């Protein structure tokens, strides 16, 4: 190994350390390498499995005509168990996006506000209480939240607002927001705390007030981390299953108002997977829904990555 591009120091480290590796060390290194590769392998195999199973919906098999991509993505008719079935995912995608986006409209400002309070306003006492409380909120099982939504919030919303049904997008978004807020708050707090104390001191030294320091110094400097926090919260809400299954109402339609009921991708998968014959078109259609969910989640993660980079460059 005589690659001239390595700086001498690094090469020394490489050549000096290598002979000293004992067999135990070598074994350990090999073991951890196997761990790392198997994690990667799991990811790859899941992806391959997901996309091949999903892909079979679109090809003709056993004389059955495949579903066209146009029908899957553009039709809002999801009637998978009818004698002449249709597999339009548009209404389900719309259901997922509507509850997710509405929930992040609630959880984003709330979570960022919490993060600001925690990182630069709260005294030690209130921090000591608030931090565990937020962690506790994050650890409530979602089925408990769903139950509360069904038993308490749905009748309340229906009576208070005079709605046909309290199982609707608004109800689901409220609970998704409850679940996403801790994610946004704790990731946001990390981002805000990463702004160096020296920068804040400089701001105060120039005569800025506490508020001006937060608004004009800390926030712009941590925009990258904050946008990542909000989008990861969005991902949390997008993947949530039980809460939306219990409180979103489950109507496979494109929702036109806050009070319409909706059927997100996740709850469709959860409700229909158990009773579907393996290898049927319906089964592959559910995998196709899973693939759509996977791509949406991936898109949100990439968005978080690039927004983070963008704001870091701007700052």
């Amino acid at each position, binding site marked *: 190994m005589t690659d001239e591009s390595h700086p001498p120091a690094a090469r020394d480290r490489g050549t000096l350390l290598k002979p000293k590796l004992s067999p135990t060390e070598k074994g350990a290194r090999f073991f951890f390498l196997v761990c790392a590769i198997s994690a990667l392998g799991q990811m790859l195999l899941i992806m391959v499995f997901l996309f091949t199973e999903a892909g079979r919906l679109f090809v003709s098999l056993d004389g059955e005509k495949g579903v066209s991509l146009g029908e899957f993505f553009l039709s809002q008719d999801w009637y998978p168990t009818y004698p002449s079935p249709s597999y339009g995912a548009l209404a389900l995608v719309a259901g997922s996006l509507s509850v997710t986006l509405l929930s992040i409209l609630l959880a984003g400002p709330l979570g960022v506000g919490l993060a600001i309070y925690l990182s630069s306003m709260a005294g030690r006492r209130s921090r000591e209480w608030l931090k565990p409380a937020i962690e506790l909120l994050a650890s409530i099982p979602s089925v408990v939240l769903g139950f509360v939504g069904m038993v308490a919030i749905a009748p309340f919303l229906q009576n208070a607002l005079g709605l046909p049904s309290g199982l609707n997008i608004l109800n689901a978004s409220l609970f998704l927001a409850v679940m996403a807020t801790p994610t946004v708050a704790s990731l946001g707090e990390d981002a805000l705390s990463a702004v160096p104390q020296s920068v804040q001191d400089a701001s105060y030294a120039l005569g800025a007030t506490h508020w001006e320091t937060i608004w004009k110094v800390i926030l712009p400097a941590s925009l990258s981390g904050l946008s990542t926090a909000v989008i990861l919260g969005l991902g949390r809400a997008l993947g949530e299953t039980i809460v939306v299954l219990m409180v979103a109402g489950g109507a496979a339609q494109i929702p036109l108002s806050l009070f319409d009921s909706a059927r997100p991708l996740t709850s469709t998968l959860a409700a229909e997977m158990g009773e579907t*014959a393996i290898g049927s078109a319906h089964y592959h259609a559910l995998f196709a829904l899973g693939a759509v969910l996977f791509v949406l989640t991936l898109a949100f993660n990439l968005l978080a990555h690039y927004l983070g980079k963008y704001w870091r460059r701007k700052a």
Partner: protein
Amino acid sequence: MSVILRVRQRAPKAKKPKAPARRLPPWAWLPGLLAFLAPSLLGPGAWAYRDPNNLVVSGSTTTLPITQAAAEGYLATRPDLRLSVSGTGTGEGLKSLIDGLVDVAGASRDILPAEAKRALDKGVRLQRHALARDSLAVVTHPDNPISDLSLDDLYRIYVGEIRNWKELGGEDRPIVAINRDSSSGTFEMWLTLVLRGARYRRDAQTQPSGGGVAYAVGGNRNAIGYVGLGFLNERVKALKIGGIGPDLQNVASGAYPLSRELYLFTQDPHSGIAQDFLNYLQGPAGREIISREGFLPPPAP
């Protein structure tokens, strides 16, 4: 006076020294992949060890209350056995039965041609045993003044031609139609008997279980739904269909229109314990359990 501050945080860009290339054998990825793949290479058979004293009952969630209660009663007579009962849905239960993972599968419908073909391909013969007669009750909120609807009314409500209770002589309230999830045996029965193959209205809500439907209807004066008789409770009101209520007499005589047979499936031949369990269910104790759970036992032999 406002203070304008610009924060520049860019650290001086120092080129990180590249880590020296680790010399690994070119096949280093292989053990990882193998470690990951090994279980799947062994196949499902590797996990399928079966204890001969353990009876596994699975299948439809509609038959679950019966098989669960029967399992408790049966175990009291045979404490040496182990019984595990779960509800996975008719399709899943039959699939597991064909794969030999369960001994008895409850079914809320007859076997489908595709499933029969699957069994045939695997060289497995299945045996069907009549378990009980199940009926769907159409339910509304107890305060809803409507108490009798025809099958045609139900059809028009669920396809969306009737959208207000007032059109049926009730209050001026929108109708919230609640479906079971479209994979369930219960929905399949509704599709056949009420919808007659027509597509339900898009804004029909979905609940993943009979209990969920009963709960949602009991909490909403606008709602209508359908559940197995076993899920009826005091929070909901069961409607008459064309003047005939879902009581045991009407169900037994076949006069009540929303009825279906429930079955248990086993492999043929099946184990002695499985046959024992079936005998228990068809005996007096089993028949009492079936009636107690809100179903109608098959006519006595």
